[in-house]
């Protein structure tokens, strides 16, 4: 009989651990589902904004030769937020501290909370004798200070990408410094696939920074992290 008693007592001791483990698994499952839903919603909304960026821009679109493409900023932003609203996504503008437009020749930052657009920061490299202007194409423009002449030269792709990357990072850092919540914000660029960034900056795009702190289940988990949704690639099925 003693054995039965001890077995039952052992089981009773173990039971709360089983229950706890089961509850934790369930909580984790719902948390992961919610996270997937949030990420999917933002990815889709970013894609929609990317589509708007391409569709509603003035002039015919050619990502590799788009000097005079006019980004319809408000239309792109509206499409992003409309897309979230229509998915029953509850958000405030505080959840989106920054939206960045990666343009053909520079980067423009948009502050969703204040509804303000910053000035375009061009992809440039300044030297003592000249200044190099880079674009998403494989060409660069060199302005010579002494002669005042502008010449077109071919750009080395990895160097071009590093200049664009530097410009974007500098702008993000400057924005972070000027932000009221600078202690909390970290604007990290999306992790790109592959080791080389040669194919990353070959088209205009949008980077959405999102702070999921206000969501149930996610509360406190990623409070200090802002998730970029990635630079949207414009490889659409239809050639506009």
């Amino acid at each position, binding site marked *: *009989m003693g054995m*039965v*008693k001890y*077995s*039952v007592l052992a*089981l*009773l001791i173990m*039971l709360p651990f*089983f229950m706890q483990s*089961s509850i934790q698994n*369930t909580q984790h*499952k*719902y948390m992961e*589902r919610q996270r997937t*839903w949030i990420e*999917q*919603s933002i990815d*889709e*909304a970013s*894609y*929609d904004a990317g*589509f*708007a960026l391409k*569709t509603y821009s003035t002039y015919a679109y050619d990502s590799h030769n788009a000097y005079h493409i006019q980004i319809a900023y408000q239309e792109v932003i*509206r*499409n992003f937020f*409309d*897309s979230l609203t*229509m*998915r*029953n996504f509850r958000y405030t503008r505080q959840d989106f501290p920054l939206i960045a437009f990666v343009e053909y020749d520079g980067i423009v930052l948009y502050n969703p909370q204040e509804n303000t657009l910053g000035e375009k920061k061009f992809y440039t490299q300044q030297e003592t004798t000249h200044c190099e202007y880079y674009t998403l194409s494989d060409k660069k423009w060199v302005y010579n200070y002494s002669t005042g002449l502008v010449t077109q030269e071919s750009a080395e792709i990895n160097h071009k990408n590093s200049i664009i990357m530097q410009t974007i990072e500098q702008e993000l850092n400057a924005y972070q410094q000027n932000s009221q919540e600078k202690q909390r914000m970290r604007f990290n660029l999306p992790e790109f696939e592959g080791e080389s960034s040669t194919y990353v900056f070959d088209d205009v795009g949008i980077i959405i920074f999102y702070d999921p702190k206000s969501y149930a289940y996610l509360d406190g988990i990623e409070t200090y992290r802002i998730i970029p949704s990635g630079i949207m690639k414009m490889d*659409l*099925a*239809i050639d506009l």
Partner: protein
Amino acid sequence: MIEESLWKIFGLILGVVLIFVAPTIYSYQRQDDIVYNLVMAKTNELSQKIRESGKVNQPMLDELNHILRTSGLTYEVELEHQQKRFSEEDGRMEVYYEGVYTQDIYAWIQANGTYRLSSGDFFYVRVRNTSVTKSQSFRDILDIGGVKSNEIYIVSGGIVRYGNG
């Protein structure tokens, strides 16, 4: 003597819970996860197809319904089409959306065959289970429900990328 019997009965109940009930709940929960992932994948596929082609027709919906039926549960499929419209106010062009919902879309498909969308509209598919899943019913029996809402609720959609509806 009575005490001994009580210990035995108690031990038996605990044994049954641990050997039969717990693994069954666990396996039902895994089944739910598999169904959830399947429904999510198929719902995403349908919404992508609709938004890329700019149209909805019966075969598209039948394909989703067929997959949903194989899961052994019943579902409610909601369709939502937000048509982009423009209005002018004080010399400024305003954008607004006009919603067309499940019943109207189905009625249109019945009458005309294909429901067409325009590029720039929004289209969403929402799928939720209306019958309880096995793990839900098991939890209800044991009254350890916790989550009472739909176990499966998927929303998929976004901007329509092609179409001149």
